[in-house]
């Protein structure tokens, strides 16, 4: 029995490729070397552990890769593939895969069909008066070449020195106090202007709020004034203003008084020009309130 492990055929190695297999024998029936044993053409009587075969077949990157292997193994020129021969060999593999019930990628069957088609076209007589006719293999040759160059490119790339494999980043420790290394942000004149614009725009918005709120504080002052005033005695106008409220407060108090007068809730009395102004609750207001109260209790 032929035992086989991943080690013998490792993806990425050049195993089923050019190297040892081709060197061992150019005989097209050589199938593989498993642990030094030359396997020949997937003969059904020769027992190959399915695992081993699977690993072997797995090393192909698809039908193009398999075809390239078949061509290289026999030192055939890719530009002049003996289609009949290659097709026969290819089919041996495909049949083997089927027999072993390996999951056969669809691409392998597509390729089988393509090969069969090329083969049949090769058999057709050619017409000398059909100069446009192309070699039936041209497309296959092109694809094989194209694939081969990238297969080679992948190997070349893999051979490049790689960081962590062939070369190593040189590093040294560094002891620093990271807190001491903050640079302050810089600010442009534009930033500054932008900030100013924003804040002033917002200040304007707040001012609207003030205006809306103003009546409220005027109302509040109206209540305060009314509660201070007496219906009988006059109160001196200036005593209504509370200096602690500041200019704003004075303005509001004045507005409150004006509003009270407008609504005829208070009356102002000035005995003489430039004399002191006195304020008292208007009688009418008083009456109204009585009436209201009466109405409410009735």
């Amino acid at each position, binding site marked *: 029995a032929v035992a086989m492990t991943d080690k013998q055929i490792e993806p990425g190695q050049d195993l089923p490729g050019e190297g040892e297999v081709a060197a061992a024998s150019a005989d097209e029936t050589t199938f593989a070397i498993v642990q030094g044993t030359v396997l020949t053409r997937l003969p059904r009587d020769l027992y190959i552990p399915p695992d081993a075969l699977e690993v072997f077949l797995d090393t192909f990157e698809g039908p193009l890769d398999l075809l390239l292997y078949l061509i290289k193994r026999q030192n055939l020129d890719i530009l002049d593939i003996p289609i009949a021969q290659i097709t026969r060999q290819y089919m041996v593999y495909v049949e083997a895969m089927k027999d072993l019930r390996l999951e056969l990628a669809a691409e392998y069957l597509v390729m089988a069909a393509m090969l069969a088609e090329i083969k049949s076209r090769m058999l057709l007589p050619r017409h000398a008066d059909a100069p446009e006719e192309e070699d039936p293999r041209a497309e296959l040759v092109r694809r094989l070449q194209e694939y081969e160059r990238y297969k080679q490119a992948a190997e070349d790339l893999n051979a490049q020195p790689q960081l962590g494999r062939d070369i190593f980043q040189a590093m040294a420790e560094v002891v620093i106090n990271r807190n001491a290394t903050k640079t302050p942000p810089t600010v442009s004149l534009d930033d*500054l202007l932008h900030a100013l614009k924003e804040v002033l725009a917002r*200040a304007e918005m707040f001012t609207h709020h003030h205006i809306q709120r103003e009546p409220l504080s005027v109302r509040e002052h109206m209540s305060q004034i009314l509660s201070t005033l007496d219906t009988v005695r006059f109160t001196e106008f200036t005593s209504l203003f509370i200096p602690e409220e*500041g200019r*704003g407060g004075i303005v509001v108090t004045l507005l409150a008084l004006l509003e009270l007068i407008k609504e005829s809730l208070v009356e102002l009395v000035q005995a003489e020009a430039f004399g002191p102004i006195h304020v008292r609750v208007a009688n009418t207001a008083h009456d109204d309130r009585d009436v209201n109260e009466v109405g409410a209790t009735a």
Partner: protein
Amino acid sequence: MSLDPQHIKNIIEAALLAAGQPLSIDKLQTLFDADHVPAREEIRAGLELLSAECAQRSFELIEVSSGFRLQVKQDYAPWVARLWEERPSRYSRALMETLALIAYRQPITRAEIEDIRGVAVSSQIMKTLQEREWVRIVGHRDVPGKPAMYGTTRQFTDHFNLKSLDELPTLAELRDLDSISLELGQAELELTDAEPERPTGEIVADGQDEGKVQAASENEN
């Protein structure tokens, strides 16, 4: 057969540079082919050679508890440290607005700034601006509490490449900014003079989204 000391030294250097962490003598020995393992003394000799070679360079060999390591000399730390310098972040909107108001309305008190901005100005912002030496206290307003008035500094004008504050673009030059908003701004200021304690709470309550702004931005910087 023993290895060339230069070669041992180079292998040690290569290993220390690649490892990026301290390596013990034992560990260094494991790097060599089983039949050419240098004696501890040979490794030590290699380390000494390496150390001597570093004299003229930017890094040195240091022995720490877990072994030897190569370390950038302290002399170069100031430059190297800039590798990790935090990207100079941006100043918060709160700070920029405060700065702008100080620049254009100086001398101005913190309460006045708060009144225009509609939100409290954190002490941190005032501290940052003063630490940056862009802002300083220029006097005290003659009102109850004698609040400090702030103004900008020479460093501030230098930063913007201005010869003097006169070169700041005038407010009138600001696009989208009509005179009304300016006047309103000034009216605000005058009112605030008289009632310095009032502003923040009330106004913040007003602007529905100001609460968020405050929470989000006032703590920056």
